[in-house]
């Protein structure tokens, strides 16, 4: 981890806090709520209340929280199938997220999309994409619209380390650079492309950061388990994009505590690796950070208790919600609301 920012707050920062208490509490709340929601999603699987597949972000909450808190209303999120965290971080409700995983009417897309396609335009989440790399060019297009119309929003595209080896990644990076688009590419390097260590299948050590130079971009490699570091990096990249400075590519080093998907027990991990990363669990790190800044333990406890209550309420609401109604089957294939392809 040489070269990365320290996970504990340096002394001068304690005296000159650039983030501020309100934002810090917000960063903590978002991380805790994501963690609790993801753990609930895991439990609901075991109870067979969630079908299909699901890709949890437990251990990676700091990236979603850092960006979610730094982004403004109107800034657009483009997520992957591992997108629960990013959707919640933009303000979508727990009912909407968990309800979609449970394929109930209360879900964000009323059960039509499922866990891999979470979308909430109301919260500027312009889709979660399950074809690796597909959404990088799409985020470029949203950024192109902002540039063309003179609108000030930024498109932020989240993806995993595995994405850096697919063609669309390289097409999008070049495209964004030559058109100087207001887009921020965020690589969550959790060390594994699905089941295979990313290092075994990539020509460079840092799959995103080491490729930035090929597109004339700055090399940015950060500690993705420290929400403060992510937040500061996000603010800088968002501001640069908003001011016409073009795209950024940010590699966040992080780790998923569970397997790739519900089917994966993650037995391929070397002994001790998970334990090492658990010491740097973003929520443990941030709880310590809040204590460093003198936040009272009762305040921290209250945020955690509130999150657990919200998850309980959301779970009950989802369980009470009916399944996706049958009339949705043929709805919204075309813009007239239906599916007619002939007269």
């Amino acid at each position, binding site marked *: 981890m040489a070269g990365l920012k320290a996970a504990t707050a340096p002394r001068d920062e304690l005296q000159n806090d650039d983030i501020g208490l309100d934002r810090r509490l917000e960063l903590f709340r978002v991380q805790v709520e994501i963690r609790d929601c993801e753990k609930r999603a895991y439990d609901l699987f075991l109870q067979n209340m969630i079908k299909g597949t699901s890709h949890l972000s437990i251990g990676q909450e700091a990236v979603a929280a850092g960006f979610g808190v730094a982004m403004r209303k109107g800034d657009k999120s483009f997520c992957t199938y591992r997108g629960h965290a990013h959707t919640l971080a933009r303000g979508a409700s727990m009912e909407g997220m968990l309800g979609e995983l449970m394929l109930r009417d209360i879900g*964000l*897309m009323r059960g039509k999309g499922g866990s891999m396609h979470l979308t909430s335009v109301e919260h500027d989440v312009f889709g979660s994409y399950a*074809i690796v790399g597909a959404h990088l*060019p799409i985020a470029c297009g949203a950024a192109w*619209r902002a540039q063309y119309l003179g609108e000030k929003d930024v498109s932020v595209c989240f993806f995993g380390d595995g994405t850096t080896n697919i063609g669309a990644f390289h*097409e999008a990076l070049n495209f964004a650079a030559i058109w100087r688009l207001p887009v921020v590419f965020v690589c969550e390097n959790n060390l594994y492309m699905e089941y295979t260590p990313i290092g075994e299948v990539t020509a460079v050590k840092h799959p995103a950061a080491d490729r930035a130079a090929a597109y004339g971009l700055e090399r940015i490699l950060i500690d993705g388990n420290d929400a403060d570091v992510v937040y500061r990096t996000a603010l800088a990249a968002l501001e640069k994009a908003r001011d016409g400075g073009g795209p950024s590519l940010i590699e966040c080093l992080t780790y998923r505590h569970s397997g790739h998907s519900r089917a994966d027990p993650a037995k391929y991990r070397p002994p001790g690796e998970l334990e090492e990363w658990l010491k740097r669990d973003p929520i443990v790190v941030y709880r310590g950070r809040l204590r460093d800044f003198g936040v009272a333990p009762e305040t921290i406890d209250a945020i955690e208790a509130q999150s657990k209550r919200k998850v309980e309420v959301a779970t009950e609401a989802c369980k009470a919600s009916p399944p996706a109604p049958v009339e949705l089957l043929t*709805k919204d294939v075309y*813009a007239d609301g239906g599916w007619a392809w002939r007269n």
Partner: protein
Amino acid sequence: MAELTYRDAVARGIAQEMERDERVVFLGEDVAKAGGVFKTTVGLYERFGPLRVRDTPISEQAILGAAIGAAMTGLRPIAELMFADFLAVCFDYVANEMSKLRYMSNGQLSCPLVIRTGNGGGVRFGAQHSQSVENWTMMIPGVKVVAPSSPVDVIGLMAAAVRDPDPVILHEHKALYAIKGEVPDGEIVDTLGTAKILRAGRDCTIVALALMVPRALEAAEILQRDHGVDAEVIDVRSLVPLDTQTILGSVAKTGHLFTVEENPRLCGWGAEIASIVADEAFWDLDGPIVRITTPHIPLPAADHLEDLALPSSARIVDKVRRVMGG
């Protein structure tokens, strides 16, 4: 009224829509400063400027992805794919993204864009630059597909496609770029999902698309002159939505159906029409439905071989005559 080439009709159709709506933007490889490799977009860059008419790198995924992202956030992009064969390198955006966003998001997202692409053979480009791939595109729920056969239809269907709230693939035919046709002055706007009866006839119905339309018309004249068969010729124009009523109405009158398809035989668009007619107009039929198609082969470059592969007016005449007698 003026005579215009199919090629110039492309630029006129795009210009008409860009003039009308600031949200219409246009991107593709060599489309701006160079005016397009087929010279279909000459003058647009000069007229609408570098912000609205943009050259891209050779990055078909980026082209379609950018068009989708722009469309879902409020623009009305037109994206050019130089050759329809290149759909294969960015098919994810066609098959998985633009076609499914509205459905998967329960109507939250919408993708009003147009992909224009040079489709079809007859120009000796060989197997990777000559295919008729309209059948690849029509099989995906959520996409609309049109293929004009005349300059006036290029403009009218382009306008309809740009104004449509769904993603539309507009197949231009490379072998038609040089043909000329009468085009009225002023704004031209057509309707997706409408076939056109180009030649009325009593004895049989010939349904064709794009380059096959002039060949079917020529065949109909020969059938009339040499064999006394009065064929009705329908230009399908729009595969999705499909105007089945015009086709079913014609078959009810003639009792015979022939499709003329440039796509290779398996799962060609005519198979769907044959299936619909067999289901819904079986008792109107006085003979077998016959599909006249390119055989199930890649296209050769050699001119005499390519000519043998694509349905010709002579082959249409022969196939129709065998069923109809005369």
